[in-house]
């Protein structure tokens, strides 16, 4: 779209700034089926005020969204939440999505799963199960999930996933309380015969941002964990083990921001339990009006809605992004992070060393050196705590 200028802005736009709203296909459709969850992980990416959004789409509404997504080119479908197993119609949703040609991913804590359900899901066409773990041993896992039985259940379910022939991704969210046991975490994943392992340090959104002081590891912890992961990679490859270890560093230790979601509204589309369509799981927090799939077609949402067009192109940028020669690489970073830390979503992501707000990140790193681990300080993700953040 050409920039035609406006009466209140006579400045000609430099040609390097693009108002091009072009975009790819929503290859990844993430269906957050419910905000209900039996666990209370203090780094949950759900919104703090999730208890404000009680409604859930019906089976038919979800299937309709899946078909519209497929027609737009979506190929990967994630069933997420909350805990997607809470939805009693999950098997119908899996079956419907499979028939449409999706590769279907169940992203679960494993709590509420059993071998019968797993076999039924496979028959319905489920392609893959990702089990998330909080830690490699029961005590830390229980402390973080708020459930004593969860760890044993997760181990059992991970073994069953493999026994039934599913590919398995294990997801370990790492932070200052468990990252020093990375060797044990990797060994557990090898024992469980995982195909992919995501050693993902917390990303500080939602509940994790609320708990950042008790979660953010020190630089030394992080460097040690990465070194050990690299040692295991070399060792496992030499043994001919095809397991893939994916190590995700927290961007708080970077000097340049991540190219968040591969660009706003470029490949990824999330639908929340109550039908909000978002370009990423966190975007609900931003002061932007996002459309609801019960009111607007997915095609209109993806192609023309103001919400999805908001950060497409780079005409929205301020300095230092505007004149930065890396702007097409990182797109200014994460708008949610800019909003949370600086109060202005149009600012550069403060992870960037060029940002005037970068000191906020440096201060968080310094605090990580001083903090004493104390699980009692966690704000756990549950209905009661959510009401504190809720507006109604």
């Amino acid at each position: 779209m050409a920039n035609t200028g406006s009466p209140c802005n006579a400045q000609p736009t430099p040609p390097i700034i693009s108002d091009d709203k072009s975009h790819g296909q929503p290859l990844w459709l993430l269906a957050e089926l419910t905000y209900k969850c039996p666990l209370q992980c203090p780094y949950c990416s759900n919104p703090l005020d999730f208890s404000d959004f009680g409604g859930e789409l019906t089976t038919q509404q979800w299937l309709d969204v899946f078909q519209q997504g497929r027609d737009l080119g979506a190929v990967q479908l994630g069933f997420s939440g909350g805990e997607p197993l809470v939805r009693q119609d999950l098997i119908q949703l899996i079956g419907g999505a499979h028939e449409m040609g999706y590769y279907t991913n169940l992203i679960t804590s494993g709590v509420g799963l059993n071998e019968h359900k797993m076999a039924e899901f496979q028959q319905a066409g489920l392609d893959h199960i990702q089990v998330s773990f909080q830690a490699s041993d029961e005590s830390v896992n229980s402390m973080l999930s708020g459930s004593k039985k969860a760890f044993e259940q997760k181990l059992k379910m991970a073994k069953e996933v493999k026994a039934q022939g599913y590919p398995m991704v294990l997801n370990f969210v790492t932070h200052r309380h468990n990252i020093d046991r990375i060797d044990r975490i990797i060994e557990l994943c090898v024992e469980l015969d995982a195909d992919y392992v995501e050693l993902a340090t917390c990303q500080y959104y939602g509940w994790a941002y609320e708990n950042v002081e008790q979660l953010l590891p020190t630089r030394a912890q992080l460097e040690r964990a990465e070194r050990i992961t690299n040692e295991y990679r070399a060792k496992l490859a030499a043994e001919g083990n095809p397991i893939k270890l994916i190590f995700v560093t927290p961007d708080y230790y970077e000097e340049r921001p991540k190219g968040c979601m591969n660009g706003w509204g470029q490949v990824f589309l999330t639908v929340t339990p109550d039908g909000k369509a978002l370009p990423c799981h966190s975007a609900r927090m931003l002061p932007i009006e996002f459309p609801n799939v019960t009111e607007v077609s997915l095609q209109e949402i993806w192609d023309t809605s103001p919400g999805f067009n908001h950060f497409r192109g780079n005409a929205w940028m301020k300095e230092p992004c505007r004149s930065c020669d890396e702007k097409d690489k990182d797109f200014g970073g994460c708008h949610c992070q800019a909003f949370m830390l600086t109060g202005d979503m149009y600012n550069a992501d403060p992870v960037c060393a060029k940002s005037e707000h970068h000191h906020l990140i440096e201060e968080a790193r310094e605090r990580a050196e001083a903090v004493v681990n104390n699980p009692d300080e966690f704000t756990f993700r549950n209905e009661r705590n959510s009401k504190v953040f809720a507006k109604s």
Partner: protein
Amino acid sequence: MSDIEITAASVPVLNKMFRFQWEKAQNCFVLLYPEGMIQLNGPAGEILGLVDGERSVAAITSELEAKFPDAGDLSGDIIEFLGEAHGQHWITL
């Protein structure tokens, strides 16, 4: 990438981690795996489309040579591609 020897008698099998399908939106064959997608070029799609755990490399080669008579001898290209596919863990032998 691959240290295994592939011969005309080898029978490749798609690793069950991957699903092979035609994607209209991409206008190509793809391999789907947990949370990811590999877009295949024309020849790769034609070859993997015949990998079914029953056809040998010789059978795949003769079918493709019959389908593309102008392409000449394809055996070298097919074995080379299958070696790469094996190195990527897309197939087992």
